[in-house]
């Protein structure tokens, strides 16, 4: 049995205690999200209901949909690929419950907690800053959707809560690059 996740090494967080507030309202606010457990889940759609029972949370079925709960979130990134987010305290029970699922449903659950880092991006200038490096039509992207995409020259996972509130998942080693990119993009005046 693997060690409980919360006793392992602290994850590398190059953004540690950073926050950024640009402009008065503030117009752009950036902050690293609280650390959490992350799992990459690959499972055929037919076994998704069983996976949701093991996760003890909703798992949406279609690409781009996400289910955001009080602690647990599930993002559908591909036809058989999900990213699951959960508080650290739930990580061990998720691992155990999914290991029991192997008996009835073929799947793969990989702990990717330390792979990416979450960044909260909000404010009236959030979309402008993101769109400075991401060619998706974020204005017309419905709230409550997620996708893997590209921001500047790094791959990200983007979650849209509303037009002024987003979350990025970015590889930890690229986090300072994306942070500086958004900081500079947020300073550009809109004419």
């Amino acid at each position, binding site marked *: 049995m693997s060690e409980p996740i919360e006793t392992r090494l602290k994850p590398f967080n190059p953004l540690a205690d950073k926050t950024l507030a640009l402009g008065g309202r503030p117009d752009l606010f950036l902050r690293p999200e609280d650390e959490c457990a992350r799992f990459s889940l690959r499972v055929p759609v037919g076994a998704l209901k069983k996976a949701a029972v093991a996760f003890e949370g909703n798992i949406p079925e279609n*690409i*781009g949909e996400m289910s955001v709960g009080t602690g647990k979130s599930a993002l559908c990134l*591909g*036809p058989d*690929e999900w990213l699951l987010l959960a508080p650290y305290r739930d990580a061990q029970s998720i691992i155990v419950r999914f290991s029991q699922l192997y008996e009835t449903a073929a799947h793969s659950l990989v702990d990717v907690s330390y792979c990416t880092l979450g960044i909260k991006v909000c404010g009236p200038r959030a979309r402008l800053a993101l769109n400075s490096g991401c060619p998706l039509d974020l204005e017309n992207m419905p709230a409550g959707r997620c*996708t*893997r*995409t*590209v921001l500047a020259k790094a791959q990200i996972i983007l979650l849209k809560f509303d037009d002024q509130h987003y979350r990025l998942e970015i590889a930890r080693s690229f986090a300072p690059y994306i942070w500086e990119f958004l900081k500079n993009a947020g300073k550009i005046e809109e004419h």
Partner: protein
Amino acid sequence: MLLIDCPYCRQGRPEIEFSHAGEAHMERPADPETASDAQWEAFLFHRTNPAGIHFERWYHIHGCGCYFNAVRDTVSEKFILTYKAGEPRPAVSEIEALMVEKEPE
């Protein structure tokens, strides 16, 4: 920048999310043990390289992570249609009808 329709995402997505993956419908010899050198040579190296309609594999690497097939006009560089991996090659009549549709007025 082009928008490419991913048949899995069912959305036009920016081309920088994609990577090209060679010609589509290249069939590996069914029995590698008995395949001749000529069959291997054809599978590994022979490509159609047309000026016009081309069947290609594309990979939505920075998106849903799926490979799919596309029919693209190598002269105009327009994507005519895309379809999921494993689906049959679309008929020429279907492709030509779409090419006429996409012709600017």
